[in-house]
């Protein structure tokens, strides 16, 4: 079990600020395993909340205009498509009719989630509607995942602290739609003060919730880990929680659901923690989807200096280093970090076993390096490489800085190619 000293204190106390809208938005046209087709053309005038792009198929996703403006075209960056929208700063809105929630069925609810472009805010970007598809086992437990185990991030914390009542209303709605038995808010021990807040708000709103305090270990926020801590069930990677009567939603997702069903607003913004060990002004901010990183850095008084720093989209453990300041915030980005560059050399593995001890999936990371380097894909498979959740815990503790993640990613590529 890995304990990472928390670095949340940098941003935990900060109010949720608002980042001024940029002039140019680069709207990501990719989602969870799919690509969206633009529904607008160059030169079109669009209004805030207007549907810009959607895709069909199983993993359907859609995206809406964060502001009103003019479509400037699409472009490709690092193999991904983006739609360029120029802000006209006139804030003309278009909103759908308010949904009648009294008689909404589960199917309709799921349908709406797709329409409003709601994706897993925890980073996966899994289309939330899919979790609400009818399923043989009725959902008993709704888990609201407030375990934000990434050491720098406090975006979910800020939501729970400042928007408690809204989150509760969304949770109650979900419970009603699914006919579930209980709602469990799962929070980490280090955020224990939220328990009182949540329970008080629940009392005031006359709803019944449970609050489960989870350990501060990393990666406690992973879906499998949360399910185990709350229900005691250990689900194998790849199994579907709904088949065990469980539904897990991140607090950020819940916030989107609230906005969609209570205000008819599609997802166009989210809370992002801006922090890191080389960050000038840290804090939590409401940021519109499609806002380029360069704009965020400028607004918070940070510089883009690739020689000394790394800019990371997401958390320090599972986020991705960005290669271009034009890349935008997407629906799964909980953080933007300015970090010190890490050392590049590795020592030899000293077989300390630390990586094995901390692996939440109980794998043997050092052996993956061995098998990947010797090209032994059969053993990679036998030692369950595909069960790895890429949490980075093993690389975090390794005293020798063995390239564990590199070998894990490459090994996975080999396995997926062979399959």
């Amino acid at each position, binding site marked *: 079990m890995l304990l990472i000293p928390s670095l949340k204190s940098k941003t935990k106390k900060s109010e949720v600020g608002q980042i001024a809208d940029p002039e140019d938005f680069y709207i990501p046209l990719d989602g969870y395993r799919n690509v969206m087709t633009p529904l607008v053309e160059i030169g079109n005038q669009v209004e805030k909340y207007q549907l810009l792009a959607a895709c069909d198929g199983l993993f359907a996703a859609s995206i809406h205009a964060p502001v009103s403006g003019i479509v400037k075209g699409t472009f490709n960056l690092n193999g991904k498509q983006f739609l360029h929208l120029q802000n006209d700063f006139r804030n003309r809105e278009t909103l759908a009719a308010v949904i009648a929630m009294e008689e909404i069925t589960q199917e309709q609810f799921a349908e709406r989630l797709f329409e409003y472009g709601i994706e897993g805010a925890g980073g996966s970007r899994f289309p939330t509607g899919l979790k609400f598809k009818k399923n043989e086992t009725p959902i008993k437990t709704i888990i609201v995942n407030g375990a934000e185990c990434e050491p720098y991030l406090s975006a979910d914390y800020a939501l729970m602290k400042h928007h408690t009542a809204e989150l509760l209303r969304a949770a109650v709605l979900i419970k009603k739609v699914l006919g579930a038995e209980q709602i469990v808010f799962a929070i980490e021990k280090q955020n224990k003060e939220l328990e009182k807040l949540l329970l008080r708000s629940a009392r005031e709103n006359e709803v019944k919730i449970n609050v489960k305090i989870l350990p501060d270990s990393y990666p406690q926020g992973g879906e499998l880990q949360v399910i185990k801590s709350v229900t005691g069930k250990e689900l194998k990677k790849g199994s579907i929680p709904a088949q065990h009567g469980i539904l897990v939603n991140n607090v950020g997702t819940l916030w989107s659901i609230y906005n969609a069903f209570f205000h008819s607003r599609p997802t166009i913004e989210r809370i992002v923690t801006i922090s890191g060990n080389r960050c000038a002004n840290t804090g939590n901010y409401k940021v519109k989807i499609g806002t380029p990183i360069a704009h965020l850095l400028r607004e918070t008084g940070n510089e883009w200096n690739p020689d000394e720093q*790394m800019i990371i989209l997401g958390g320090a453990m599972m986020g991705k280093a960005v290669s271009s300041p034009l890349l935008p915030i997407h629906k799964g980005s909980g953080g933007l970090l300015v970090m010190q560059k890490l050392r590049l050399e590795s*020592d030899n593995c000293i*077989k300390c076993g630390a990586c094995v001890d901390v692996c939440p999936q109980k794998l043997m990371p050092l052996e993956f390096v061995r098998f990947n380097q010797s090209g032994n894909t059969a053993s990679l498979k036998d030692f369950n490489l595909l069960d790895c959740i890429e949490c980075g815990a093993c690389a975090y503790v390794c005293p020798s800085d063995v390239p564990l993640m590199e070998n894990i990613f490459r090994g996975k590529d080999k396995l997926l190619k062979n399959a």
Partner: protein
Amino acid sequence: MPNMLLKASINPYLKARFSTVQIVMLDVVIALLPLVYVAWLAYGMMALQVIGVAVAAAMLADVIFSLIFLGKKDTLLDGSAVVTGLLLAFTLSPATPLYIVVFGSFSAILFGKIVWGGLGKNRFNPALVGREFMSVFFASTMSSSGIWKNNDLINTSSLHLFENSDTVLSNYLEGIFFKTSGALGEYSAICLVLGGVYLMLRNRISWHIPLSLLGALMLMLWLFGNDDVSFSTGGVLLGAIFMATDMPSSPTTKYGKLYYGMMIGITIYIFIIGGCRQEYMSYAILMMNGFSHQISLLFQPRVWGQKIDRKAKLEDVFMLTLKILAVSSAILTLYYYELIHYLVYIFVIYLIFKFNYSFSKQVDNTI
């Protein structure tokens, strides 16, 4: 190397603080320092000379051989040579001739570490490898009573911690704190245990190996009688806490460590009743070193959400145990017919061969 250039762009972007090879080694050195002090108390400058020469020679050997065989310049910085030198010295008599000590350190580094490909790649504990080389190539000196029966050289013979009481209990307690017999690292059971506790608190070793080793040994003594079993408590503690837990040569998984420690405990007992007078500890650990990787893999943790086939596992463990017992009787037989040195010769030839054909090509691999 391509592996390394990628690092900046792959998660995680945060590292555990105070987690580097140097700090791991520094912790081991800190844990061993009280023993150096006790050795000095017992045999004065003489003890310090052996320890100092062993450490200096190990460091020198590390620099020279790393450069020649691995083409690496900065290996000294990792600190593992210091640990090897200290541990080697702790298995020696304070009266060991210094040139033999130098020979031991050089063999420990060369055959214990470098020809395997360097830090972390060795399958056997370097200090014990060095010690075995000394026993084989300087057999008569190393086992002569001349260097082991050295009461006249003692500097401080007892500490008198418990003034004016001469009860059985106080004598016993004093014996735990300080007892001037055996090798340099064996004089204080308390300091050995304290060092071990320190390493456990710092998370450098886990309790699994020392406890299962000692537990298994006690159990054997209790089950099969301990009348004609004599061994050095200090030696067993030194082995259990510092030698058997050597990271590269011991298993990486928790249950693997438990089994590994247990099997060392059992083989120690077998070697002792089989008539090994001095080398039982080294033989048991070195032999189990050979099985350590296999044990790691056999005892891998149960993967999240998966079931294991207990019956098949048990069968595997049973077969492995039989294999280990067979090898230990083979070693005992060799010992009995005084053929152990052939084992060392074969080991050297095997290593040279392996180094030329495979190990030298993987020097830059981190695993």
